[in-house]
C-alpha cells in the first residue's frame, strides 16, 4: 500500500518534473522548425537558415542578451532597472560625440563604460541609500539619461566610424562568427557561474526570497544590490556601444522602448518580478524566443503592429502558464 502510494507520488513528481526552462527550449525548437518549414514553402528556398539571415539576427540578439543576463541578476534580488534604454541612447550619443572630436577608439569605449558605471552608481544610490522604489526611480532616470543624450547630440544623429567601434559590433572571428556573439557567450558563462556555482549567487537568490533573513544572516544586502545596479549600467553601456557599431550611427533615439523588450524577455524566461526566482538559461531562452519570433514574423511579411500584438499576447500567456503551473504544483503538495 505504502509502496504504491510512493510510486504514485513519484509519477506525479515526474509529471511536474519538466522545468519551465526546458519547456521554453522545446517551444523555441518548435518555433525554429516552424519558421524553417514555412520559409521553405513560401519562398521555395531556405531563407530562414541562410547566413544572410542568421548572422545579423545573432548580432542583434547579443546586445539584448548581454543586458538581459545582467538584468536577470538584478531582478532576482527584487529590484528593477528601466533606465537601460535611456542609458543606451546616452552612450551612443556620447560615443559618436567623442569620436567626432577625434579621440582614440579604445579610450572612447573606456569612457563610455565608465559613464555607464556612473549611471549605475546613481541608480544604486537612489534605490539602496534613499530607499526609493526602483521601478519609479529608474523610470525617472530613464528620461534623464535620454534627455542628456538629446542635449549632447542636439537631437541629430551623428556618424560613428572608427576601427575599434566598428569591430565591436560588426567584427567577425573565423570569418563568420560575429564578435558581439562572443561577448554574449562570455557574459552568459560568467553570469551562469555566478548564479549557480558561487556564494554570491546563492546570496542573490536569498536576498530575493527574504531580504530581512539574509540581512540578519550577515549578507550585505544593500552592497550587493548596489553592485548589481553598477553591473547593469555597465552592461547597458556595452549594449549601447554594440548598437552604435551595428548601425554606425550615434543617435539619442537608440534603445527607445528597449527596456520593455529586455524585461519581457527576462520575465518570459521565468524570472519573477517579486524576486527570488529565475535562471540565466531561462533568460537566454526568453531572449531567443522573442528575437526569433520577431525575425521570423518579419520574414513572413507580417506587419509590425501585428507582431506587437503577438508579442504582448505571448508574454501574458507564458506568465499565465507559469502561474497556473505553480499553483498546481502547490496544490499537489
Amino acid at each position: 500500500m505504502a509502496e504504491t502510494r510512493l510510486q504514485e507520488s513519484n509519477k506525479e513528481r515526474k509529471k511536474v518534473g519538466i522545468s519551465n526552462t526546458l519547456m521554453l527550449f522545446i517551444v523555441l525548437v518548435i518555433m525554429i522548425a516552424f519558421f524553417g518549414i514555412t520559409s521553405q514553402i513560401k519562398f521555395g528556398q531556405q531563407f530562414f537558415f541562410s547566413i544572410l539571415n542568421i548572422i545579423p539576427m545573432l548580432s542583434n540578439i547579443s546586445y539584448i542578451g548581454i543586458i538581459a543576463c545582467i538584468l536577470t541578476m538584478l531582478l532576482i534580488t527584487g529590484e528593477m532597472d528601466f533606465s537601460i534604454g535611456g542609458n543606451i541612447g546616452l552612450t551612443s550619443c556620447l560615443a559618436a560625440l567623442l569620436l567626432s572630436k577625434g579621440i582614440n577608439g579604445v579610450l572612447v569605449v573606456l569612457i563610455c563604460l565608465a559613464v555607464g558605471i556612473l549611471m549605475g552608481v546613481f541608480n544604486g544610490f537612489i534605490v539602496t541609500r534613499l530607499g526609493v522604489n526602483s521601478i519609479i526611480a529608474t523610470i525617472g532616470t530613464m528620461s534623464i539619461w535620454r534627455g542628456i543624450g538629446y542635449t549632447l547630440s542636439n537631437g541629430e544623429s551623428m556618424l560613428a566610424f572608427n576601427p575599434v567601434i566598428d569591430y565591436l559590433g560588426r567584427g567577425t572571428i573565423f570569418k563568420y562568427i560575429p564578435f558581439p556573439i562572443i561577448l554574449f557567450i562570455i557574459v552568459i558563462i560568467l553570469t551562469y557561474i555566478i548564479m549557480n556555482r558561487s556564494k554570491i549567487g546563492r546570496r542573490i537568490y536569498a536576498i530575493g526570497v527574504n531580504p530581512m533573513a539574509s540581512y540578519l544572516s550577515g549578507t550585505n544586502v544593500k552592497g550587493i544590490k548596489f553592485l548589481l545596479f553598477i553591473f547593469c549600467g555597465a552592461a547597458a553601456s556595452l549594449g549601447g556601444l554594440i548598437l552604435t557599431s551595428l548601425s554606425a550611427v550615434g543617435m539619442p533615439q537608440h534603445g527607445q522602448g528597449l527596456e520593455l523588450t529586455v524585461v519581457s524577455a527576462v520575465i518570459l524566461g521565468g524570472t519573477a518580478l517579486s524576486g527570488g526566482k529565475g535562471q540565466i538559461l531561462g533568460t537566454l531562452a526568453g531572449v531567443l524566443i522573442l528575437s526569433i519570433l520577431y525575425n521570423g514574423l518579419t520574414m513572413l511579411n507580417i506587419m509590425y503592429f501585428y507582431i506587437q500584438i503577438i508579442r504582448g499576447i505571448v508574454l501574458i500567456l507564458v506568465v499565465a502558464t507559469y502561474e497556473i503551473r505553480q499553483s498546481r504544483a502547490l496544490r499537489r503538495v
Partner: protein
Amino acid sequence: MNNLEAKNSKGKNLSKKFLGLFTQTKTPTPSLIILYIIMAVIFAVSNDNFLTIVNFKGIFNNFAVYGIMAAGITIVMIAGGFDLSIGSIAGLVGIVSAVLLMREGFIPTPLVVIIALVMGCVMGLINGLIITKVGINPIITTLGTLATIRGICYFWAKLNPRIYNDFIEGLGRKFLGNVIPYTTIYIVVIFVILSLILKFTRFGRDIYTIGGNESLARLAGIKVDRIKIITYVISGLFAAFAGLVLISQLGSGRPEYGDGAELEVLTIVVLGGVAVGGGKGNFLGVFIALLIIGSISNGMVMMDVPVYLRMVVKGALLVFAISLDAIRNRRRLQLY
C-alpha cells in the same frame, strides 16, 4: 538591536535637518503647495505673462488629458495596483470613436460616446480579471496589454479620420463663459466626486484597506478581488474619456495618440503623494502635482529652456519627488 536603531535614528535626524520642512509633515500636500508657490514666484518674476488668465487657461487645457487619466490611476494605485495601459486605452478609444464619427450622422454621437466609454471599461475589466483571477503581477499584465492594445490601434492607421462633429469638438476646446475651460470643470468635478467616494463610502475605505494590507483586508471579509477589478474598470473608463478629450483637442484620430502618457501620469501621481505600494494618497495632492507639472512645462517654454533639457528636468523632478517620498516614509528599521 539597540545599536541598529540608534544608527538608523541618527541617519533620520540628518535627513530631517537636511530637508527640514518636508520631512516633518505627514502628508506631502503642504510641502507640495509650498513648492508650487516658490515655483510660481520664480516663473512670475522671470516672465510677466505667467500669472495671467490666458496662460492658466493654456496650462489647464494642455494637461487635461493627463489629469483625467491621473484620476483613474490614483484609485488603482491606492488599492496597491498599477496600470501602465492607460495611454494605449486612450489611443484605441480615440481612434475607434474617430472612425465611427467619420461618416456624419451614420452613428449618433451619444452612441459613439457610450461605445467609447464601454470600450474603456471592458479593457479595464480585462486587466482586472487577468491580475486578480490569473494572479499575474499588475506591472507585467498592463505592460502586455499596453503593447497589445497599441498594436490594435494600428489597424486603422491608414484611415486618418478627421473630427467634424460639433459635440466632440466642443468637449475639450470650449470655455465656460469664455474663461473657464470645460476640461478644468471635468477635472475638478471628477476629483471632488472621487475624493468624496474615497472618504465617505465603504467602497472608498475598502480601497485604502486593500492597499494598506491585502491579506488583512481579505481576512476582514472584504471582497478584495471584486474591488480591485472595479478599480481597473474605473481606470479604463477615465482613460477612455481622456481619449475622447484627446481627439477633440487634436481634431483627428491617429494610432499613436497617448503614447508615453503613462509615464507623465505616473510622474504626476507619484509627485502628488500616492504611495507606490498602495494605501496612501489623496486627490488634493494629485491636483497640485498636476498644476506643478503643467506649470513647469509651461514655464520652461516661457523661459526658453532648450527642448531637450526639459526632458532632463522632468525626469529629475520625478526622481526628486520619489526620493522625497521615500525619505519621508522611511521606516524605523530600513536595513536592506
